[in-house]
């Protein structure tokens, strides 16, 4: 190849093609290679530094949750037909995968109360960012108004994407744990492309979704209202009103709680559902049901209007193989729970979360961060340093929750701790949490006073 292009060596090729100013001019500072056995020992040592949610009593959440994953899901996900295939461009050899997508979409539509779902996107935050771009394609406006109740990481992801597609992001503060409706309405102007909030929000509070949607639709004074986007937690939708029934146009969310383990933060999948008028603006793809030449039921990729295989260099979405396997875990989980199961699970989470909040806020030095209803997670404020309390709790084998300020960086979150409840945390576990946190806070107060 070098001879064909008239260059004597690889070095000469680089010398001629890469400007001197961007070349390092020395060897990369990499450690020496290691033998396979040494690498194994090294990795084992690194892995041993992790603490599994099964090795401690964990109340971590803040976007990823330690729900039980039935063995059924692993069994189906590990089938090679699902584990290894690429995008099902050829329906004649991809019926299983396509049917899974179709069933998944159907389940997400039922959960969200919206008529259209795609076959999933990468994860929750990028789903929110993709909703921002959908809004821009829809109305061409330049501002995204977002509630501070959205996950800070999702807002950060949205800001990164929005910079790329030339939009600004305006954050609306909370009042007593939920989006301040007056500030929300004031922030929406005629150039507002979308108005976005989370349900439940990052601080665990259940928002008045209908009121937020209605306020956003009446605000701004443009000829059409902004696109209303809600980031939802699918596990709560057996109990909370579906977004489609409270004025939401686009529902997005993190799919991990549905049948996917924590897995060090990913991969998971993102859900993306919308009203029909946004169908052609959606990222990713949609599988559809049809009949073959003999009239038998079959499935095909129906719509992928923004994807690169149909739009070539002008594609604005590239979610092909995507998270189909993780979404499979999601739909199997929903089928396993069933219509009644998801309601029962939601009710159980609701009851235990309220119980936990009562127990925790009854402790000296622990206060509710807001007075709103909660469903699967709640925020408390400690009188003492959160990191110090967490470290004391860890000695008792309990991880009491997420240090909110450490995650969000917001000054108003200092002292805040976010505590997540799943069906794996029993009332006895919650009692133990209360005992351990109570003792840790008391000990820390003494230490500070001394």
């Amino acid at each position, binding site marked *: 190849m070098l001879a064909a292009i008239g260059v004597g060596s690889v070095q000469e090729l680089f010398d001629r093609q890469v400007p001197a100013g961007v070349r390092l001019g020395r060897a990369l500072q990499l450690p020496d290679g290691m033998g396979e056995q040494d690498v194994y020992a090294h990795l084992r040592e690194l892995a041993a530094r992790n603490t599994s949610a099964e090795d401690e009593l964990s109340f971590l959440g803040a976007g990823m949750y330690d729900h039980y994953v039935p063995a059924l899901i692993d069994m189906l996900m590990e089938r090679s037909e699902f584990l290894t295939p690429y995008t099902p461009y050829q329906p004649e050899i991809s019926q299983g995968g396509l049917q899974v997508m179709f069933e998944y979409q159907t389940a997400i539509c039922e959960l969200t109360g919206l008529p259209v779902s795609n076959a999933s996107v990468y994860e929750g935050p990028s789903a929110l960012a993709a909703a921002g771009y959908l809004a821009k394609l829809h109305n061409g406006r330049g501002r995204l108004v977002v509630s501070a109740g959205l996950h800070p990481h999702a807002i950060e992801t949205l800001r990164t994407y929005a910079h790329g597609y030339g939009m600004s992001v305006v954050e609306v503060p909370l009042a007593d744990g939920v989006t301040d409706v007056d500030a929300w309405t004031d922030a929406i102007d005629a150039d507002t492309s979308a108005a976005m909030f989370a349900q439940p929000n990052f601080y665990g509070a259940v928002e008045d979704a209908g009121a937020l949607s209605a306020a956003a639709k009446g605000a701004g004074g443009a000829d059409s209202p902004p696109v209303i986007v809600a980031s939802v937690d699918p596990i709560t939708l057996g109990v909370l009103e579906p977004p489609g029934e409270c004025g939401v146009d686009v529902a997005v969310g993190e799919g991990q709680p549905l049948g996917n383990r924590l897995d060090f933060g990913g991969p998971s999948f993102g859900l993306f559902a919308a009203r029909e008028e946004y169908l*052609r603006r959606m990222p990713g793809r949609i599988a559809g049901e049809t009949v073959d030449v003999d009239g038998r039921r079959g499935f095909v990729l129906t719509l992928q*209007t923004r994807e690169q295989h*149909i*739009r*070539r260099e*002008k594609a604005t979405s590239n979610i092909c193989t995507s998270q189909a396997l993780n979404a499979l875990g999601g739909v199997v989980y929903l089928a396993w729970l069933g219509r009644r199961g998801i309601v029962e699970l939601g009710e159980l989470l609701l009851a235990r979360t309220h119980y936990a909040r009562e127990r925790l806020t009854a402790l000296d030095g622990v206060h509710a961060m807001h007075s709103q209803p909660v469903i699967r997670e709640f925020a408390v404020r400690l009188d003492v340093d959160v990191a110090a309390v967490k470290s004391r709790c860890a000695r008792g084998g309990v991880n009491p929750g997420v240090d909110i300020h450490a995650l969000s960086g917001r000054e108003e979150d200092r002292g805040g701790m976010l505590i997540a409840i799943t069906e794996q945390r029993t009332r006895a576990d919650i009692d133990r949490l209360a005992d351990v946190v109570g003792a840790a806070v008391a000990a820390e107060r003494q230490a500070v006073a001394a």
Partner: protein
Amino acid sequence: MAEASYPDELLYHPEHDWARIDPAQPGEATLGITWYAQDALGEVVFFEAPPVGLTLSKDEPYAEVESVKAVSDVVAPLSGEIVAVNEALADDPQAINEDPYGEGWLVRIALSDPAERDALLDAQAYSATLGG
């Protein structure tokens, strides 16, 4: 329309677009895509109609047609401002396949430079570009 056809009364752009200029109204043109274009695209499933009032520049894309195979730009054969779009295509995009020179018209424009028509091809010259 199953058979290839390139009506003599139309003007053609090498990017497979046609323009119809009615002698009674030489300041306006109706635009569409040719039989060859719709045949290459296959079944058209969507026409993204541009807004009335949009300014078109000759040789630049002004709209998109989507078929089951691909999304393609529609290139303006002439410059001007859109005065009407074919609203019926929203519900019946397949008219572009079935009747590309009639019901499948895309937009009507007021020409900003009528002399540009001299650069377009007649049916015979356009057919010749298709290589028989």
